[in-house]
């Protein structure tokens, strides 16, 4: 499998321009896109994840690595699509209706993106109807909902109920998170999972997709 050390290091160091250039160079040299992903990009992001878990990296290093990965993927996506390769898992993310807090949601979204997922961010104060429409129109495999207020937590259940009523609940996995949210609450409202941390959310999405 062809491996680009330059691409690997550029992602590890969060250098988007270098990652983009290294990808272009590798492609020009005839390296197959999937080999670049499997040989350099995925190992680099795995190492970034390991460094984060070991508290060697903070979120900024993690996000910059994700940004570098994304800049490399920009070159590869059209080639992968043309070759009929399976595209990345699509995740819809948003803060539920009535809640304007978004930093936790943004971190989760960025970390998912950096881990190779395609993320559609619906923003904050997202109504159940918007979540349903996103499932119908964008066909994601996963929905992530965030809430920071005790009084907006119930909107998570309302959204899950809306997905059920629209007949699309079985098409997606639903994950929830946020300061007042618990795994018990996730079970009570029929969510598929809960994570108390952004890195945990990435692992959870990976696990759910692998077991789907």
């Amino acid at each position, binding site marked *: 499998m062809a491996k680009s050390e330059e691409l690997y290091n550029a992602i590890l160091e969060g250098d988007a321009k270098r990652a983009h250039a290294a990808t272009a160079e590798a492609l020009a040299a005839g390296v197959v896109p999937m080999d670049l992903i499997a040989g350099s990009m995925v190992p680099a992001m795995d190492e970034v994840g390991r460094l984060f878990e070991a508290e060697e990296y*903070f979120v900024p290093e993690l996000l910059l690595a994700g940004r570098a990965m994304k800049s490399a993927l920009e070159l590869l996506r059209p080639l992968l699509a043309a070759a009929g390769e399976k595209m990345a898992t699509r995740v819809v993310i948003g803060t539920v209706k009535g809640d304007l807090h978004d*930093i936790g949601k*943004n971190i989760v979204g960025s970390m998912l993106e950096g881990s190779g997922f395609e993320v559609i961010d619906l923003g904050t104060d997202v109504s159940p109807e918007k979540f349903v429409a996103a499932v119908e129109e964008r066909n994601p495999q996963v929905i992530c909902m965030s809430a920071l207020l005790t009084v907006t937590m119930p909107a998570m259940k309302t959204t899950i109920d809306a997905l059920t009523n629209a007949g699309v609940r079985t098409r997606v996995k639903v994950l929830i998170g946020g300061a007042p949210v618990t795994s018990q609450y996730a079970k009570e409202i029929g969510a598929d999972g809960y994570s108390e941390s952004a890195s945990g959310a990435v692992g959870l999405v990976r696990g759910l997709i692998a077991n789907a």
Partner: protein
Amino acid sequence: MPETTVEESVRKYSTLAIPSQEQLLYGVCPHPLECGLGLTIGAGTVFPEVNFTLPPMNMTDETWPEVVAHYEQMAEQILRRAVSLGVPGIVLEFELLPPMTEKPEWGAELTAILKRHMRASHEKHKLACALRVTPTDIRDQSKPPLMRSGQAWERLKRSLELCADAGADILSIESIGGKEVHDQALMYGDFPGVVFALGVLAPRDMSWLWGQIHHICAARPGVICGGDSACGFANTAMQLAHQKMLPEVLAATVRAMSAVRSLAAFEQGAVGPSKDCAYEGPVIKAITGYPISMEGKSASCAHFSPVGNIAAAMCDLWSNESVQNVRLLSGNAPEVFTELLSYDCRLMNTAAGAGGALQMRDWMTLSDEWLSPQAAVLSPKATIRIATAIVSEDSPYRQTIAAGRAAVEIMKDGVNQQKLHLSRKEQQWLTRIDGVLESLPREGETLMHDLESQYGSLYDKAGYGLE
């Protein structure tokens, strides 16, 4: 870039109201504040400030009677416990939830309910008390946020007015101007972006917003223009640092720099007490001489902090931040936390009464000071250093950089004296922040232009008076 001029501001601070750390004590300040029903804050006694909120529940027209019942219950139980403990005075803070600001009449109705209970306690038990009301800053509903116009601002303004009319004694807010840039800059560790948000955007919005709040208060005798909090900036950084997502040295530097945007409220007429979650409060107190509210160990119901004791060292009100109305063994959580705060305050006041305020303050300081960079920038000595750096400069942008430099120097001194221990990664970040602070342009306008391609799409220039 048009600057806020001295003429437009109510005040401009170039000296410290409290120039030495020996004078920077809890419970006292140069400008005590008479407010509410017989309460004087900052005249020698620390009072509890109790903050409370709803348990998980929907807030709709249908559930509104249940919401009202919760607030009736919380007010009754908090005041009953306060009377039982013989507190010399108390502040209740009603932080509106977003729907209560969206529908200003809701917030006003609850304000009136709380004030009714407080009047009854004052009349029956002579309990000195005041009600702080804090509407939610809902202006970030649109992207980019509309700061000075639009439906969200109109509702927020209406909420402030109706709550003041309904019985608020102190108006406050946790405003969000500049947060749309700060969030992204913080997450990516982009320190120039952090400085731009805190030193250019946030002070401009604060000056405008607090000018508006000052007008609202001025038209309503007895309603006090309280203060703001950098909650969405520095407390966000503090919580992310707690979760090992951001370096603590970054959070500590952000805290010090955030004092400049919070100071803008006082330049526009705020007189305190500043907000409880404004851990930058001691710097505000040193500069302005107005009383502050703080929170620490007894706010662990709401969030972690590495500054549980040191936060009390210079407070005038002592708060629990927020607690849900849920049942505990000895009663509901709001009244339980009333008791915790009351005992905290009683101990501080007893020490002060026995002439031991300085000793007590120093014990509270020493117990936390060098265990975290965030505590290191909160000591009385550090407070005076940061405050002095701020008043030595002449624009919010340069004041923000000066505050950041002071914080970095405090941490470097702590490391050099082997009091503050930083991990290799934290040390690297401290060096990096130090370098960026030294390399920033002299004018905020230059930095704004430098960062235009990075952040220009995130904020509305007109909303900050930049067009």
